[in-house]
């Protein structure tokens, strides 16, 4: 029976009220006809009420409280709950609507979560730092890059003013300006975190119709390394020019003196020409070294890839330096255990490494000192070290000594004939062989340069 009265009244309530009224009249009649006394009528009424209440409970109250319970759970976020009420009355319809609502919500939430996850993933995978601020300049979010650079946590900075998160005067000033003017801006700023780092900051105001809602998104790109490279490059150019000019100036000076008349004095002329020849040689050596370095830096050079017995190389190099060491009164020692593994590489280049290292060690060790070359095998690698008892290297110079043209003490090293390129060559050769070089030093006590090379037949195929 599907017919309905207006306003959604169905036949059920009508039928039940009708039934109740009939019973009421029937009981009245029975009491009036004295077929039933008052107590009996009350008892029958009570019995019928209990039956009715029970029916009401089964059909209405119990399902309603189940719906209520489930709705509450859904509000707590358990949208996977479903109601299993299949009655065709209003309560069944209500249950259906609740289920439908939950399904709809679940879909929407999934969609939003997915979008949010995607946005978060993009944010997390960015190599630049991202900070988002609201209109009041309070932090909305930071991405992991920022968390890492400034050693902070997203939870700790949400809702804080930027100064409470990154205490930097310029940063706050720039962000304030971006918020106020609503114009994008790009600057370079230095932030100490806790070492000074240089960032390229890009602030973009968030366009939002609602003025209250806007804000600003800040991108921070760490350009410290690039800046350092730029500085190194200009230093390199300056150094090369200087190194090339010094011998040239000297040659030109003597040339001019010769032209001005010194040419007539055979003795002086000869002396001058000798100096000029030495300077020319120095110039040639410098240019050769530069070419070597650039070739090695371009990684083109390990031509003669072959098994190399380092013991052999070390002994050869040491015998080369023996006379020089004796002249300076320096003891040249070697500690070479037998049965060391063979390495792969170019014997001449590896010899060059040792030549540069031993040459440096002899140069910077005063008479009476000691230079020791030792080799050892260490889990699949061969380690060679050159230790001296020389002047040592100050701690602040250690990270830079493998740079081209870096010299700890310019005046002293020029006196010793160095041009600040030897260790750069060493580093590149070792790197081209798949090895590593490191240095330890105590000023006044001496330095130890040690490098490792992969050992064995299959070690390091070229690049």
């Amino acid at each position: 029976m599907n017919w309905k009265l207006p306003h959604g009244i169905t036949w059920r309530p009508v039928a039940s009220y009708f039934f109740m009224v009939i019973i009421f009249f029937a009981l009245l009649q029975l009491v009036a006809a004295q077929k039933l006394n008052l107590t009996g009528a009350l008892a029958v009424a009570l019995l019928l009420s209990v039956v009715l209440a029970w029916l009401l409970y089964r059909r209405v109250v119990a399902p309603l409280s189940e719906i209520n319970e489930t709705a509450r759970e859904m509000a707590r976020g358990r949208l996977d709950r479903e109601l299993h009420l299949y009655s065709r009355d209003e309560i069944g319809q209500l249950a259906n609507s609740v289920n439908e609502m939950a399904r709809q919500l679940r879909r929407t939430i999934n969609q939003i979560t997915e979008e949010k996850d995607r946005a978060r993933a993009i944010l997390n995978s960015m190599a630049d730092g991202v900070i988002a601020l609201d209109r009041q300049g309070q932090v909305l979010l930071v991405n992991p890059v920022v968390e890492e650079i400034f050693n902070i946590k997203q939870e700790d900075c949400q809702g804080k003013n930027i100064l409470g998160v990154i205490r930097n005067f310029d940063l706050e000033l720039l962000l304030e300006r971006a918020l106020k003017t609503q114009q994008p801006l790009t600057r370079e700023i230095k932030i100490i975190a806790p070492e000074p780092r240089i960032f390229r900051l890009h602030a973009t105001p968030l366009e939002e119709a609602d003025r209250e809602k806007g804000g600003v998104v800040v991108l921070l790109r760490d350009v410290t390394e690039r800046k350092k490279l730029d500085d190194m490059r200009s230093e390199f150019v300056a150094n090369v020019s200087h190194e090339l000019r010094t011998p040239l100036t000297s040659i030109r000076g003597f040339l001019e003196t010769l032209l001005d008349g010194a040419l007539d004095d055979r003795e002086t002329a000869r002396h001058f020409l000798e100096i000029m020849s030495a300077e020319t040689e120095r110039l040639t050596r410098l240019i050769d070294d530069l070419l070597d370095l650039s070739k090695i830096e371009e990684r083109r050079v390990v031509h003669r890839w072959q098994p190399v017995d380092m013991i052999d190389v070390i002994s050869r190099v040491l015998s080369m330096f023996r006379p020089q060491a004796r002249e300076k009164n320096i003891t040249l020692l070697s500690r070479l255990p037998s049965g060391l593994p063979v390495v792969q590489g170019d014997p001449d280049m590896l010899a060059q490494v040792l030549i540069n290292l031993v040459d440096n060690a002899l140069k910077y060790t005063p008479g009476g000192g000691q230079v020791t070359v030792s080799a050892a095998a260490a889990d699949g690698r061969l380690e060679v070290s050159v230790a001296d008892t020389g002047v040592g290297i100050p701690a602040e110079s250690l990270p830079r000594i493998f740079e081209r043209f870096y010299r700890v003490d310019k005046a002293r090293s020029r006196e010793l004939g160095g041009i600040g390129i030897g260790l750069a060559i060493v580093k590149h050769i070792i790197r081209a062989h798949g090895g590593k070089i490191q240095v330890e030093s105590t000023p006044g006590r001496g330095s130890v340069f040690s490098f490792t090379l992969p050992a064995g037949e299959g070690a390091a195929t070229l690049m």
Partner: protein
Amino acid sequence: MSPRSSFDKALAELQQDILRMASLVEQAIYDSVQSLVKLDVAGAAQVIMGDEMIDELYLEIEDKCVKLIATQQPIARDLRVAITGIKILLSLERMADHAVDIARATMCLSGQPLTVKPLEYIPQMARLAQQMVKDGLDAYVHGDVEKAREMCALDDEVDFLFAKTFRELINIMMENSKVVMQSTYLLYVSRYLERIADHATNIGEAVIYLVTGERRELN
């Protein structure tokens, strides 16, 4: 806007102002120490010139603080916020002055090559002092009493290093009268660093007072 929320806003602004000044002071300390290590006169000059701005900021924020107390008559925690604000400002201002002192020492030292080499303790002290300033300010930002209490240990370390530097420099001076000038300047520098660390503990004490209302000596 209700009076309460405008007052809250004023307090938040006060904290922000203090942190803004703190950022300048931290930078000044860092730059002064760097100028000393590198004997960089230009860097030192910049620190000395930058102090003017810090002083201006100091007066401006202090005025704001006083006005806040006078017009809002805060009580309990609100009063403590205003009072600690003034205390922290004062410590920051003193630290900035010490940074200037270090920069001045750099200028005096820069003429001649450094012959005295006990400089290893001074950078160490500088690192610790800077860490303490940072910790104190972080504790202030987060109201972190634990962090404020932990500063005690760092301060002890700074004091220990100061005593060591002091002895060593005295010895050096007794051995070689030519380096008395240099050594004295270095002695001053270590003293300034020790004072900076002390002011940092003052900030820590202020934070503890701000959060708990109790007073505690940290150094």
